[in-house]
């Protein structure tokens, strides 16, 4: 089902991930979050932005440990763990946050 944003209709796959990464804009994350009954706060955006930066450099989402470590460094040790990330993104940082950030879904034994 395509996602409607700013008058454009963007293609998504069966699981709601954006097909073309280059089409992403912040508004998309807000719309996707609303569909999941979430309101994005600054804390969410910290993660989404980190995911995009990391993807830009490595062409893959960061490993959970890489992500938690980066969060811990930036926001304090007590937030550098998956519990914090799951509290922000109940469907999981890899799956939900990546979708909001316009990244492809991580695949494999995860």
């Amino acid at each position, binding site marked *: 089902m395509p996602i409607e944003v700013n008058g454009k209709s963007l293609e998504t796959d069966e699981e709601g991930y954006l097909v073309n990464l280059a089409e992403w804009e912040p508004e998309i994350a807000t719309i996707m979050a609303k569909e999941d009954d979430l309101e994005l706060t600054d804390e969410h955006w910290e993660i989404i932005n980190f995911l995009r930066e990391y993807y830009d450099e490595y062409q893959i989402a960061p490993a959970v440990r890489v992500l938690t470590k980066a969060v811990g460094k930036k926001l304090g040790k007590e937030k550098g763990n998956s519990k914090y990330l799951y509290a922000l993104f109940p469907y999981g940082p890899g799956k939900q946050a990546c979708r909001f950030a316009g990244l492809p879904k991580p*695949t494999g034994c995860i």
Partner: protein
Amino acid sequence: MAKADFEVPELQEHVDVPALEEGTMAHLKPFVVKNPDHNTDLGFPGELVEDWHDKTLEKLDDLRHRYRSLQVYLDACVKCGSCTDKCHYYLGTKDPKNMPVGRQDLLRKVYRRYFTFAGKFFPKLVGAEDLTRETLDDWYSYYHQCSQCRRCSVFCPYGIDTAEISMAAREILDSIGYGQKYCNEIIAKVHKVGNNLGLPGPAILDTVQGLEEDVFDETGVEVKYPLDVKGADILLVTPSADFFAEPHVDGLIGYGKVFHEAGVSWTLSTTASEAGNFGMFIGSYENMRRVSMRIRKAALELGVKRIVFGECGHAWRVAYAFLNTLAGPFDFLDPNYPVPQHICEFTDDLIKKGKLNFDKSQNDDMTITFHDSCNVARATRMGDKPGGQFEIPRNVIKSVCNNYVDMDHNTIGERTFCCGGGGGLLTDDLMEIRVKGALPRMTALQNAIDEHGVTHVAAICAICKSQFTKVMPYYGLDMDQIVSVHQLVSNAIVLTGQKTEGAGEAAEAAG
């Protein structure tokens, strides 16, 4: 945790054999490959071919001749009923097509109709049926509700292996362009990038460098996690989830500490950065071979003398049972060591030789039980004695933990219940069958929690670990109650020269 849009079974003291309810899972189908590249990269047609009817029968005929076992399994069943209540998916869904015999019959009825005398002339008498589009959809649905765990085969008096029938059915479906997105997309990534996740070399390097920092911060010891080091003695091939997910990565940290203390030189490889081999799940010998050849190539290029496999269930089956015929001969490796070797064998050997020091009290906050992963339990061995695949991982755990108990004996060892997510089912679009299929395992675990105060379950399979983190919350358990075996090793191992601060008296004595 995601909200369930299906009924989650309630845990009882025992899993009763449910009364049949036809068609309860007929609605469930994993996503079909949409991007034709995910089929063509694997050598399959990009989409469902027009002459699928003839092609299906041709492939079935080809497979029954290629694999005598398949022909025997299709012929031998006498409908004795032994297997009916042994499948976790049937126990969790009540759907008769999830009984092993029901699942087999989906293929068997077509085989009988077209390839047996009785089925050709008296189809109704022998349960033979025409191949229709509905048959094909039924295959797609129910052969993706089998985790190929082979528990049923333990109880079948003829040893019929439903996993092989599922693999054959999936191979037929792939051969006509009706493949599953999850498996085929992943295999395409392995062919292209080198691992299931699609982690490029620089991302792996960034991850392992981060681990070196963490271990140094924690212990004050420079444990290395080398990547692509030519001339190293050991190539470690581990599931890419070990780089990416939790608790997998804690296991990887543990392997590195063990190698460090053993004083051996070892390396990971960017091109062989995946132990898993989904070629087996889709029954494709050609793809299984291509995936395996990456390991041979990396071993030759790096000039290693040994290959060790990390904690991955089906990888160990492919490695232990098929690697030599798929990608051998491995005459360039050191014959004094098993080719290949499991990381648990490696660690257990050092423990038995007294070469590792442990402070077991580091795991005192946990009472551990061990989940035997299907492929390790029923398709492989470790060490040189029967049952080594059960004893060695337990011995490793007991050497590093003070508190260990087994789950009910009917649910461990060769009778182990699947985690519910194996065999190419570990995808969100199959969450319903994953949760329902986890019922028997969760029941045994909950009983161990209630009766013995178990707090955590340890596993040596990336799929099991991920599946547990996802399904445990549906059953009221915490996602972090699943741990890697080498995570426990990592907690307890006392590295030479390690900071002893806060590590307890035992550590000081040992270190």
